[in-house]
């Protein structure tokens, strides 16, 4: 069996599932927008201040939305037994999982990018800063999503795992957050930001290589 074929089949199934269950698609987005709305209300509607905190707030909101989306990624397939079948099949389990993660990441990312121009208005950002923010979200976001997926895999067999999962994975987000906001700050000062983007890319590649094994081991233990 061709492994690419397996990869795309799993991705297609995940996409179909999310399009049939529109709430999976819409809930994280609505959550993202809500968090974005909270900040101007909480700190005050001052354009200068909002401009300054804008990119950081977008990142925090995106990270929280990721957490929300990743949390339910394995839940349903764990309870209906399909995850167990995938673990038992002759296809490497980590391959199935990485396909699942990448598919779900696209389901979250594409609408997020489509809706993100509202931040141009919400936080009075200029186009350049918005562009860098989206760029860091594309590169660094996958790393964040992979960490969240590992957290989801660790807590998959628990009934009330969501708060716990946030507790486990948020500390792991910090390096990505630092370099992403570092790139944005550099861009806003007019400096080159390719270095930070390269580091984000390196983190993404390393986590793409390591996360599938952590996930498959964790889920296998969870299945018992």
């Amino acid at each position, binding site marked *: 069996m061709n492994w690419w074929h397996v990869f795309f089949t799993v991705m297609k199934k995940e996409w179909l599932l999310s399009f049939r269950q529109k709430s999976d698609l819409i809930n994280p987005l609505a959550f993202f927008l809500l968090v974005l709305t909270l900040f101007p209300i909480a700190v005050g509607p001052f354009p200068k201040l909002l401009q300054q905190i804008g990119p950081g707030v977008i990142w925090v909101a995106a990270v929280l939305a990721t957490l929300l989306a990743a949390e339910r990624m394995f839940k349903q397939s764990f309870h209906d037994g399909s995850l167990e079948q995938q673990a038992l099949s002759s296809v490497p389990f980590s391959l199935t999982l990485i396909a699942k993660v990448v598919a779900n990441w696209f389901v979250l990312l594409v609408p997020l990018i489509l809706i993100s121009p509202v931040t141009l208005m919400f936080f009075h950002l200029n186009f350049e800063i918005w562009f860098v923010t989206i760029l860091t979200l594309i590169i660094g976001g996958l790393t964040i999503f992979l960490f969240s997926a590992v957290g989801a895999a660790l807590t998959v067999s628990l009934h009330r795992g969501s708060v716990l999962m946030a507790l*486990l994975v948020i*500390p*792991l987000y*910090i*390096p990505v957050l630092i370099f992403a906001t*570092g790139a944005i700050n550099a861009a806003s000062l007019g400096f080159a930001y390719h270095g930070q983007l390269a580091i984000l890319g390196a983190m993404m590649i390393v986590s793409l290589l390591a996360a599938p094994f952590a996930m498959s081991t964790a889920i296998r233990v969870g299945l018992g």
Partner: protein
Amino acid sequence: MWKWLHPYAKPEVTYHFCAKLIPWLWLFTFGLLVVGTVWGLAFSPEDYQQGDTVRIMYIHVPAAIWSMGAYSSMAIAALIGFVWQIRLADMAISAIAPVGAGFTVIALLTGAIWGKPMWGTWWEWDARLTSELILFFQYIGIIALYHAFEDKQQGAKIVGILAIVGVINLPIIHFSVEWWQTLHQGASITKLEKPSVDTSLLWPLLLNILGFAFFFASLVCMRLRTEILSREQHRPWVKALVMEKSVDGV
């Protein structure tokens, strides 16, 4: 060496071995900590700039060192449990985590108390402070995850995976935070060349660092024994042990 080590993979052997070890460990702990702390707090000279405040170092530095040492030993235990499937190593993780978390809290608190007169602030978003705080959150995550599982065996395995993922991330977090912001002084005693701490201050510090290591070992041994007992409570040897004790008691 394997032949020598192998019996200790059996919980029962380790349980009795720890019992023999604990009095000695406590003896060294008290000996070193009493000498080191009294020397450090009462007899070592004060710093020409920091005055008496420098004495916080005798608690702060050992706690900070072993808060990280505890995490690495936990990760090593996790790796051993993961590779060789040794149950005892999994038990060690849950024995170490709360002790490490305690050391982290001590390091953070003493650091804040020192920071107020020296830097003029209780807390600063500095690289070392931040990564120590993150270390604390990682400990909390591990403890919380372990307690969320009803099946402790399954929980210990899961926690092992988290500990390994965490230890890979720890240096990355450390360096990224360092790149982000730094105010804390550099390492003063781990440098390979001549340490930048005067010997009159260094000796009590080294005694306390060693003392904290024994303190850590004693606490972990005690926790490991209770962990073994609670995890193995249905095994015949534990039952026999309980019977023996209760006959002694009556």
